[in-house]
């Protein structure tokens, strides 16, 4: 479904992504793990095309010179040079780090803005699905986005991304800063989205433990390079990974 080859990203002279190739088959959940500043968000931005936008803005401001190299293939077509909005139109939707919901709009409006690309029928159907997936949102329909708790905001962010009718959903650190309880809800929801709606998902996380049970294939990034990759079981049983990436406090 998605096949990115030899991605390299430079911020000025600093290498942020080093020769990363990543593939995602139909209906798979791919995990990308790595510590802070390992390049997870850069990877997500590059795949979704947001990097294109960042690059343009930086260039105009005379700031860092960002260079992006490599090719991205999606649904058998090369999308490397497409604008992010067109990538979204083709079904590749990013649910960003730190959620970035629309703070001043209500939950319902957030979802309807998310449905910009959807037809009326699709919107209605997806809306029902989101409320089924995240029942708490149902009661908060009228609540202003900025006043939701972190967990509710994350649910809303995922819901909003679903409204854009993705075929491939990119989740950038969906569990960041959330309590273990909310984390488990979100992880289960993620699996349901894949199982019920057949959406492929690429998810990044700093700590592998909460997400690893649901991923089919995982990549581990370190300093911008993929140091390890493999299917679920292999990663799970790798002793190095166990010591380095399973540290999550959970008394």
């Amino acid at each position, binding site marked *: 479904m998605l096949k990115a080859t030899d991605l390299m990203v430079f911020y000025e002279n*600093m290498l942020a992504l080093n020769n990363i190739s990543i593939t995602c088959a139909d209906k798979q959940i791919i995990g990308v793990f790595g510590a802070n500043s390992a390049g997870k968000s850069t990877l997500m931005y590059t795949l979704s095309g947001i990097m294109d936008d960042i690059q343009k803005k930086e260039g105009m401001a005379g700031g860092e010179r960002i260079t992006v190299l490599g090719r991205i293939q999606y649904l058998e077509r090369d999308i490397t040079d497409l604008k992010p909005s067109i990538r979204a139109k083709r079904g590749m939707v990013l649910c960003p780090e730190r959620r970035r919901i629309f703070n001043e709009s209500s939950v319902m409006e957030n979802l309807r803005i998310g449905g910009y690309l959807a037809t009326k029928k699709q919107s209605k159907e997806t809306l029902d699905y989101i409320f089924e997936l995240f029942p*708490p949102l149902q009661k908060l329909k009228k609540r202003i986005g900025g006043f939701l*708790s972190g*967990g509710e905001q994350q649910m809303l962010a995922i819901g909003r991304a679903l409204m854009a009718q993705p075929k491939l959903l990119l989740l950038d650190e969906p569990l960041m*800063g959330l*309590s273990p309880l909310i984390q488990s809800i979100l992880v289960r929801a993620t699996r349901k989205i894949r199982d019920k709606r057949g959406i492929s998902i690429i998810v990044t996380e700093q700590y592998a433990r909460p997400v690893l049970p649901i991923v089919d294939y995982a990549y581990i990034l370190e300093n911008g390079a993929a140091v390890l990759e493999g299917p679920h079981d292999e990663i799970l049983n790798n002793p190095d990974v166990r010591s380095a990436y399973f540290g999550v406090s959970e*008394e």
Partner: protein
Amino acid sequence: MKNDQAILRIDHITKAFGGILALNSVSFDVRKGEILGIIGPNGSGKTTIVNCITGFIKMTSGKVFFHGRDISGKPAHKIADMGITRTFQIMRPYYSLPAYKNLVIPLFSPRAKRTGGWRGGGQLGDRNTVGIDILEEIGFERDSYVPYKAASTLPTGYLKRLELARCLALKPEIILCDEVFSGLSMSEIASMVPLIERLQMDGITVIMIEHRLRELFRVANRVMVMNFGEKLTEGTPDEVMADEKVKEAYFGSEEVEEVMTYA
């Protein structure tokens, strides 16, 4: 603890955003020289407490007393000038400046001039040198090039230290740490913990807001638990761990369905 008096007293502070209560009549004492941890789920109002105490937002009602003096409603820079400093959850270094130059700015402040800055005995030397000294204290390798690198190129671990260093430059009495451990790897946290303990030994009162319970419980003398803008309980780490209410609110039960209805 030698000294049991309250250095900071928070008296029924309430903060409403629009119609929603982010803080609902929260009161607690902070004792001199202790490390107080504040934990709670996201959106429970932890950062709002820091913002209210340090004057970054105006509280709707309530009072804050520092050494028995009412400081509520004073502007942020006045409060910092009294010695109550904070770190930011989303780090705010001066990105374009080298790391040590970041400290020249707080060292320029009236408080630093008065107190002589970190460890200063009343007189402040060359700010650049003092800046590098502070960075060394806080774990930047002195002889490496790290203190001279632009803040924008430093990794998260160093930036968190830089945030702390900015507080230290003022020779503070109280430091409010807003999630200093978040975003750090296990080994980075392990190296931060002794740092926090050192602060306590130097007589600085520390208030820590955290998600990472295991590490927090190692350093904190007392812990306060927040939920939905209200204080749930406070006590020693062991007491808090044993509290049924805390378990319910923070860790939740294993049954997902139950949670779905509660939220």
